[in-house]
C-alpha cells in the first residue's frame, strides 16, 4: 500500500475538521487523478465542498484565491506541478495580493501537486519545477520527502490557523508531493492526526563530519547514503537536513547546520543548472565561507536540460550511491 490511501482519508478528515475547507479540482468529484479526494467525494456530508471545476489553467488558481478571500480555506488538488507553470500569472497574482492590499488580506489557499519523476511517463509529468515556483514572490513552497512524512506534511500545510489575526503572514502555499515517493510502498502505520512534529526545515539525522541538504525524492537516498557511509566507517556520521520549505528559506537554520560541519552536500532531483541547489550554495558561500573546509558539492539529476523520457526517469534524480560518493569526497577532502 502506498501513502495515497491514507492521504485520501486525511483529505476527508481535514474537510470534516474545518467547514471552511473545500476541495477544488477538475476531477475531484470522481476521486482525482491520484485518488486523493476519493474518500471525501464518497462522503455525502462532504460532497457539497468537493468542487469539481472546468479544466482551466489560470482561472483555476485565481478561483482558489477568490474562495480564500471570501473566507474559505481551499485545498486545490492539481494533477501536476506543471499546472502551476501554466497558471503562473495567477499564482504570482495570489502571491502579491496580500502585499498589495497593504497586508490586510490573507490568502489561505493550499495547492497540492505531484512533482518530479516517478510515474514513468516522462515529459512534464517527470519535471521538477520547484526552482521556478520558489521564485514566485509571496508564495510558500513546501516539498515533502519520505513516504512516512507525507500525511504529516499535508496536515501541517493545510493549517492556516491564525489567518484572521495575522493576515500579513498568511499567503498561498504549495505542497509538492514527489511522484516517486507517493507511489512507494508505505511500510509503517501513519497517524492521520499527527502534524509535522518539527519545523518544516529540520535536521532528520545527526552527524558531525558533513551536512547533506536534501528535499523531495532526494531525501530518502540521502538518508540511505548517510547510513551506508556510517556502516562502512562508524567515524563518518553526517547530518541530513530535510529542506522541507523551499521558499522562503529558513536561512538561519540552514546556515547553522552548514557551519556546524563545514562540509556540504546538496542533493535534489531535476537538473543542476538553475536548480535551487545553486541558491543554497550561494547562500552558504555568502554566510559560511569561513566555516567551509571543502567545495560545496551538488548531486542532482543527470539530464541537462531537464527533458526526460519515461525510460530515463531514474536518471532525473540522484541515487544513494552518488550521494554517498559526494559525502566521501567532502569528508576526505
Amino acid at each position: 500500500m502506498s501513502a495515497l490511501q491514507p492521504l485520501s482519508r486525511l483529505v476527508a478528515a481535514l474537510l470534516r475538521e474545518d467547514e471552511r475547507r473545500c476541495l477544488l479540482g477538475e476531477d475531484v468529484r470522481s476521486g482525482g487523478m491520484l485518488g486523493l479526494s476519493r474518500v471525501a467525494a464518497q462522503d455525502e456530508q462532504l460532497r457539497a465542498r468537493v468542487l469539481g471545476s472546468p479544466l482551466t489553467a489560470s482561472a483555476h488558481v485565481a478561483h482558489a484565491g477568490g474562495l480564500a478571500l471570501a473566507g474559505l480555506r481551499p485545498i486545490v488538488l492539481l494533477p501536476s506541478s506543471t499546472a502551476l507553470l501554466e497558471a503562473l500569472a495567477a499564482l504570482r497574482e495570489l502571491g502579491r495580493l496580500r502585499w498589495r492590499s497593504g497586508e490586510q488580506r490573507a490568502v489561505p489557499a493550499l495547492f497540492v501537486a505531484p512533482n518530479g519523476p516517478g510515474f514513468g511517463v516522462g515529459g512534464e509529468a517527470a519535471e521538477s519545477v520547484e526552482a521556478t515556483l520558489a521564485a514566485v514572490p509571496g508564495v510558500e513552497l513546501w516539498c515533502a520527502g519520505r513516504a512516512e512524512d507525507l500525511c504529516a506534511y499535508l496536515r501541517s500545510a493545510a493549517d492556516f490557523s491564525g489567518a484572521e489575526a495575522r493576515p500579513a503572514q498568511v499567503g498561498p502555499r504549495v505542497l509538492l508531493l514527489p511522484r516517486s515517493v507517493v507511489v512507494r510502498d508505505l511500510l509503517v502505520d501513519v497517524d492521520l492526526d499527527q502534524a509535522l512534529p518539527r519545523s518544516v526545515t529540520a535536521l532528520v539525522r545527526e552527524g558531525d563530519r558533513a551536512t547533506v541538504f536534501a528535499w523531495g525524492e532526494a531525501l530518502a537516498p540521502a538518508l540511505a547514503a548517510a547510513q551506508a557511509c556510517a556502516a562502512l566507517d562508524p567515524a563518518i556520521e553526517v547530518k541530513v537536513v530535510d529542506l522541507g520549505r523551499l521558499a522562503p528559506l529558513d536561512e538561519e537554520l540552514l546556515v547553522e547546520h552548514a557551519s556546524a560541519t563545514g562540509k556540504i552536500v546538496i542533493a535534489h532531483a531535476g537538473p543542476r543548472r538553475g536548480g535551487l541547489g545553486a541558491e543554497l550554495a550561494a547562500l552558504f558561500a555568502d554566510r559560511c565561507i569561513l566555516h567551509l573546509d571543502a567545495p560545496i558539492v551538488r548531486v542532482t539529476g543527470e539530464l541537462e536540460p531537464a527533458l526526460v523520457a519515461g525510460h530515463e526517469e531514474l536518471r532525473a534524480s540522484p541515487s544513494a550511491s552518488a550521494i554517498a560518493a559526494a559525502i566521501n569526497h567532502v569528508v576526505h577532502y
Partner: protein
Amino acid sequence: MQPTAWEPEGVEALLDSKGTLADPAAVRGLDLRDYYKKLVAARVLDVKLRRLELPMWASAAGEEAVSVAIGDLVEDDDTVFVGNRDAAIGLTRGMALTELVSQLLGRGSSETRGRGLPGSISSQAHAIVGASEALGMSLGLAVGHAHGQALFGRGRASVVVFGEGLTTTGMFHESVAVALAHDAPLVFVCKSQIWPDGAPPEAGLLGDSVSDRARAAGLWTRRCDGADALGVRRAIGAALHRAKDGAGPGLVEVVVTPLAQDPPAERDPVERLRRLLDARGEWTQPFQDVTEAEIHGLIDRAVQEAVDAGQDEVSS
C-alpha cells in the same frame, strides 16, 4: 434627430440621446438630482486627478455612469473588484476622500501602503479589491469570491469591472466558464470603449459585441449605453438582483465613449442626465455651481492632506 456614428447598436435605452426618459416608472423612487450630483462628483474627481499628472494614470471621463451605478447599487457586504479607471466607485461607496487620494498618489501612509496599481483603489472596509497586475486575474478572483459567498449562503453578490481589452484573453473565457459552472453570484461589468474611428481592436475583433459572445457562452447579458446613466443603473441593478436571487452570473456590457475622443455632447452621461433634469425644471446653473464647488473643495482638501502626510513620511 438621426442617430450619429457615435451611437452604439443593440443597446437598451432608458434615457435617449435627446435626454428623454423612455420609461419614467423605471426610475421611480430614485432621487435624480442626488444621482446627478454623484455623476458630477465622479467627473470632478477625474478632472482633478488628471491635473495631478500621475504616472500611468488613465482618465475615466465618459465612464461615470458605470462607477456611480456600481457604487450606488452594491450593498455594504457586496464586494467589488475594480480596474484602474474605477476610482469613482470608491467615492460613491463612501471611501474617505483623503484615503482614496492617498492611494491614487501612491502614498505610503495609505491603507495599501502605496502598493496599488496606478489608478486603482482598494479598501477592506468598503469591500473593494484593487486591480490585478496580470491580465484578467481580477476576473478569476472575483468568480472565486462570489462562489465562496454562495457556499456560505450569504446572499451576497460580487462585481468585477473591466475593459473590453480583456475579453480576448483566455482568462475572460475561463472565468465565464467557471462562473457558469458554479452558478457564482457575480456581475461582470465590461466597459467597451467604442468610437467611430480608431477604437481598440478588441471591441470589434470578433465581429460582434462582448455581450453577444458572453450570451453564446450561456451567460445572462445586457448591453447598454454608457451615456445613459439611468439605463446603466437599471441593467446593473437587474444583474445584481438576479445574482443575489440565486439565478447565477450575468454580464452587463456598457458601451462607453471616452471624452478624450471629443464626442458629441449627448455622448456625455453627465450632460445627458443634466438635460433631463433641465427639462423637468430640476436643474439650474447655481445648483451646478454649488455641486461642483462642494466636491472641488473636498478633493482639494483631501489632496492637501495626502500630500502633507507624504511630507511627514519623508521628514520622519
